[in-house]
């Protein structure tokens, strides 16, 4: 598996798109920091960008990589290698290279700016961690879609739809349901509903770090317990891990059965 991972990883590292992605974050970091002059505000702006953009890029890269390397995959399948190894290796290769672009691209300007001396260092680290998590989650989702769809156009469409659903539509439905059910106690429901969407979950995780937790906990006792203590931090991180593990399990399961 490690060999395939290495191959995928270096293959992607050499590709133009990784550099573009890396340069994009580099520019973004530099512009935000040196025009804003305030690390904690830059972290907030970055949050808005990261929770929308990393899933999108992860989805597109994941699905493109799978379809493009199909011939190579078929070649590998002819060798005496376990199937799950091949797909996991590719998956990890894509996710790692994307995460690396993100971490290094944003890391360089922040280090140059002096993040180590700033109190925003933990907020920044949370941000990078959440970005990496989102990459892993959405690449896994894209691989799932690709494994289930032979048709490239269809697969691409579904993958984009998943992103659109998670990033925008889900919140819309969530908001409407909250407004419709306003006469009922909603705290438990809204906590669970936001756990079911990795993008919402990441947003909350970062908000918790950014001192807005008091604002959130204004709402009720359960919110207070969740956002006011470490419970919120720990459980949202755990659910994020779960969000990586479950799609990866499905990749393994699907790849074992898939007929090429």
């Amino acid at each position, binding site marked *: 598996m490690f060999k395939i991972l290495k191959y995928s990883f270096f293959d992607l590292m050499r590709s133009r798109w990784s550099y573009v992605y890396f340069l994009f974050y580099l520019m973004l970091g530099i512009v935000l920091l040196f025009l804003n002059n305030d690390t904690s505000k830059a972290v907030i702006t970055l949050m808005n960008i990261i929770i929308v953009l990393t899933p999108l890029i992860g989805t597109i890269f994941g699905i493109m990589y799978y379809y493009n390397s199909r011939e190579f995959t078929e070649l590998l399948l002819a060798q005496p290698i376990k199937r799950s190894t091949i797909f996991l290796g590719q998956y990890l290769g894509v996710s790692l290279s994307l995460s690396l672009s993100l971490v290094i691209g944003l890391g360089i300007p922040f280090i140059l700016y002096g993040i180590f001396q700033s109190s925003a260092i933990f907020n920044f680290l949370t941000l990078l961690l959440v970005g990496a998590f989102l990459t892993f989650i959405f690449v896994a989702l894209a691989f799932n879609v690709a494994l289930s769809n032979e048709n490239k156009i269809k697969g691409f469409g579904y993958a984009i739809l998943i992103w659109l659903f998670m990033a925008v539509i889900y919140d819309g439905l969530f*908001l409407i349901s909250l407004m419709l059910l306003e006469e009922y106690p909603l705290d438990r429901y809204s906590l669970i509903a936001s756990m079911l969407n990795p993008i919402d979950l990441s947003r909350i995780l970062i908000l918790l770090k950014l001192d807005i937790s008091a604002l959130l906990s*204004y709402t009720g006792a359960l*919110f207070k317990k969740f956002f006011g203590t470490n419970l919120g931090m720990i459980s949202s991180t755990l659910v994020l891990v779960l969000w990586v593990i479950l799609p990866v399990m499905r990749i393994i399961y699907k790849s074992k059965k898939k007929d090429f």
Partner: protein
Amino acid sequence: MAISSSFAQTVEVCASCNVKTLKEAIAIAPKYGKIVVKKGIYKEHDIEIDKPISIIGENNPVFDGEKKGYVLIIKSDSVSISGLHLKNVGQSYTKDFAGIYISKSEHFKIDNCTLSDVFFGILAEKSHHGIISNNTISSVVKNEASTGNGIHLWHCSNVTVAENELFNLRDGIYFEFVTDSKILNNFSHNNLRYGLHFMFSNNDEYHNNTFTKNGAGVAVMFSKYITMTQNIFKENWGTASYGLLLKEIYDAEIENNEFDQNTIGVYTEGSTRINYKNNTFNRNGWAVKIAGACYTNKFEKNNFLYNALDISYNSKLNDNTFDENYWSSYTGYDLDKNGYGDVPYRPVKLFSYMVNKTPETIILLRSLFVDILNFSEKVSPVFTPDDLLDNNPLMKPLK
């Protein structure tokens, strides 16, 4: 003995002096005399001062009330007390024990005293024309019922409260039925309830005070003609914390204050004819939350910087005006370069309207969908009051 020591109308109290307790000294001191208390620890409580006198502590003599009741009780006009350290005031659920209790007296002066482990710190009732300055008052907070207020004035007038530091109390400063008084340069922090609490007190002013990390910030209720300038309301974070809570206030001036990182910067309810000018609202959850029945309030030349929600409004009716403020979330342009944005700013977002109706929706704060919603509401307001806008939003923050 009395004659010899009151030679200059001064009585000295110390462990090795002729007069060993303050009670004795008060008994023998002449009217308008002076008592000097030397360094030492005096275990006395319920010391009653019934004649005009000044008591001066040298090198911080300590009066230990041993938790038995009041320490000093002032029942006469023209009493001044300075440089004492009073501690261990009694605690009671029926009596308001205080470090210094002032009853029906005029022209009192209390300065440079330290009061620690108090129930009430300085409690004044029906007293007028006094000065309370440069004191440090603290307690050990347990809960609201078993802790008193730092400086508590009831039915007083023309009192100046200045340069005091108050912490770990229930309310730092509490005013009830107090008129024509001033609160200046105080630092009230880490109190269980309010840093400053006003009830039924008219024509008062407070300037240059700092209120930080109090349980619920500062509350001004049922009062008229209050002036608040250059105060700092900071870090009142918590589930029910306000920088400033206004309830049933008329004709107040709120100028040059700084509201920094509070859950709610200003919460106002039933308040009319209030002018907010040159204030800075920085990184609050809500900068201003306006509940019902607030009429003809004016917000002019304020800075609204990076608040999660700028203004929250719970009705479609609007009688308040916003003009020439700086809003960090303003996205308009200034083509004629006159310093004012060409497009009016709508401080009430659709999202803040929703949060008002269904508080749980706050969980969607800063999500992409909410941004899209806010944008569409900005283009054509349906839910938010359509006349609530700032026609001259500033392009640059005010200094």
